[in-house]
């Protein structure tokens, strides 16, 4: 279990963490997802004790490791916190063999040499590096280095594991397989872990829950479905690449709920809240379909209320197996489709296209902090 309560940290004038509060449950893997510079690494450094927060409390397995207990200020040293830390860069000790790297933390416990060796070897076995024990870090690949770093961090039997973008430095070809490898290792360990990343896919693959972080605080915490289907702020939606708008409800005499986005009227699911407030509207790009004209409807959608809008294609971005098409329908809307569908539709930038999305694919919530960007 890891718990942070109102943790704040500044470096000089620069506020890096403000009122940071979140909890990782026992044996849960939580991804801390956010752009570079939002304070992810600072958070890990505070939990590990490498840096001291200015304010707030940090608990590791119910033990207060940082903060105030009565009038006493507590700041446990990194080695007393029972945390393991896998760094972003290759932080293996370059002058030691892989086995010595892994044994480093075990030796601190003053065990007999043979026990140290046996344990280090079993950890190397666990991460699949048994035959690399006598290699130096510069003799093995990036992926192997990070697995060795994981083994090294486990040497002290940590109760929680902190991973700072452990895969980001690995060659892109290997990254995908490394994700699954790391995930299965972490699952086997059954350990409480925080996995820091700026990569959504990585967060989705690795973790039980995701905490989206922005400018020194948590914006939203939830399962992958919570985050993707119901982003709670413009910031989160934009970071996840989801269509996000603010709109006002329009009173419709027919009884159907309608919203006004940038002057365009669209149908919306029934709204519980008053008509006075602004609403935050999000639609996932994969829920937005495109067709050459408005008479072609998705047969599965019969019976659903559906928004059908005509627009002009502004931009087509091709990814590995998907394409992202931005259409201007009075407001920009992104649609994600497979490359084969894109080919079938024969779409091109500047052409007109029909945009369709189901009303119940939209997530509409009252905008909580209208002042926040």
């Amino acid at each position, binding site marked *: 279990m890891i718990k942070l309560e109102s943790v704040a940290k500044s470096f000089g004038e620069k506020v890096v963490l403000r009122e940071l509060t979140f909890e990782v449950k026992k044996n849960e893997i939580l991804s801390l997802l956010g752009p570079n510079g939002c304070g992810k690494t600072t958070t890990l*450094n505070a939990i*590990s004790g490498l840096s001291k927060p200015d304010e707030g409390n940090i608990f590791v397995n119910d033990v207060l490791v940082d903060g105030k207990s009565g009038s006493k200020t507590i700041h446990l040293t*990194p080695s007393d916190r029972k945390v393991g830390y896998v*760094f972003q860069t290759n932080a*293996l*000790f*370059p*002058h030691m063999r892989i086995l010595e790297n892994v044994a480093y933390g075990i030796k*601190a416990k003053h065990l007999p040499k043979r026990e140290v060796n046996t344990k280090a070897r079993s950890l190397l076995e666990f991460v699949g590096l048994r035959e690399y024990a006598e290699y130096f870090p510069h003799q093995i690949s990036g992926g192997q280095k990070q697995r060795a770093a994981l083994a090294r961090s486990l040497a002290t039997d940590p109760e929680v594991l902190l991973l700072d973008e452990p895969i980001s430095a690995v060659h892109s070809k290997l990254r995908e397989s490394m994700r699954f490898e790391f995930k299965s290792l972490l699952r086997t360990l059954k350990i409480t872990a925080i996995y820091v990343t700026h990569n959504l896919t990585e967060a989705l693959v690795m973790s039980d829950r995701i905490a989206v972080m922005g400018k020194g605080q948590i914006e939203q915490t939830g399962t992958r479905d919570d985050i993707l289907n119901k982003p709670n702020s413009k910031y989160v939606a934009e970071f996840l690449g989801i269509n996000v708008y603010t709109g006002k409800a329009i009173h419709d005499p027919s009884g159907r709920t309608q919203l006004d986005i940038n002057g365009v009227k669209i149908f919306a699911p029934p709204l519980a809240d008053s008509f006075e407030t602004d609403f935050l509207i999000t639609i996932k790009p994969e829920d937005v379909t495109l067709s050459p004209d408005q008479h072609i409807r998705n047969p599965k959608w019969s019976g659903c209320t559906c928004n059908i809008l005509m627009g002009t294609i502004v931009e087509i971005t091709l990814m590995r197996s998907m394409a992202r098409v931005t259409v201007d329908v009075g407001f920009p809307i992104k649609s994600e489709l497979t490359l084969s569908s894109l080919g079938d539709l024969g779409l091109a930038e500047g052409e007109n296209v029909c945009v369709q999305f189901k009303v119940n694919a939209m997530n509409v919530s009252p905008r909580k902090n209208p002042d926040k960007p």
Partner: protein
Amino acid sequence: MIFILFISIPILAVFLGIDPSQASSQLRNPQILNAITLGLLTSAIATVASFVFAVPTAYLLATRKFPGKAVIDTIMDIPIVLPPAVAGVALLLAFAPKGLLGPLLNSIGLTLPGSTIAVVLAQMFVASPFILRSAKTAFENVNPDIINSAKILTDSHLRVFFTVTLPLSTRQILSGVMMTWARSMGEFGATLMFAGNLPGITQTMPLAIYLLLAQDPSAALVLSAIMIAFSFSILIAVKLLEQKKYGVKHD
């Protein structure tokens, strides 16, 4: 090309100027032998002492933040740019019997000028900044993530220092040691001003060369050649040390 010749011709000239028939007898010249022994001894002591004082200082400067750090950092660099003669004057004003600390030294019966200790002090004053510089850079260049990894794995700061920080800085520190040694051995101005030129007591190799050039030029040449050979081997050692570095920040 002209520039390369400008540097290499004088070096060559020293070796060409040596009369081979006299060279071996010069190697038995007691004044030369004394100068070599004294030079090696004093510079070795000065280097070891510099190491002992400069490495911890460098570590503090590289890893800690404290008020006045920039000022201290600058002061420690002054000897590098100071003309050695000025360094000698400064040392006299501080440590001579009538200097700032003179009364204190007198009270414990220590008269520095004209003593071998003065030679060592002059060499340290002039040369220790080299090791301080290189050690500081070495410590600063060790990837902080590597140090942090170690701190999480062990509670002993000493263990982190001796098993991680220091080994990863060794090459650069050693190259600083070499530079300090070379500089100490070649020290002339400050030694002359502060310690004097007394054969067997304060007369190191450069001081002997200075004196011998008038009295016995062939002896001066042989000694010069020995010093060049020495400097050259130190340079090679430094180059070899700098070739392979690991554990420093990259990408």
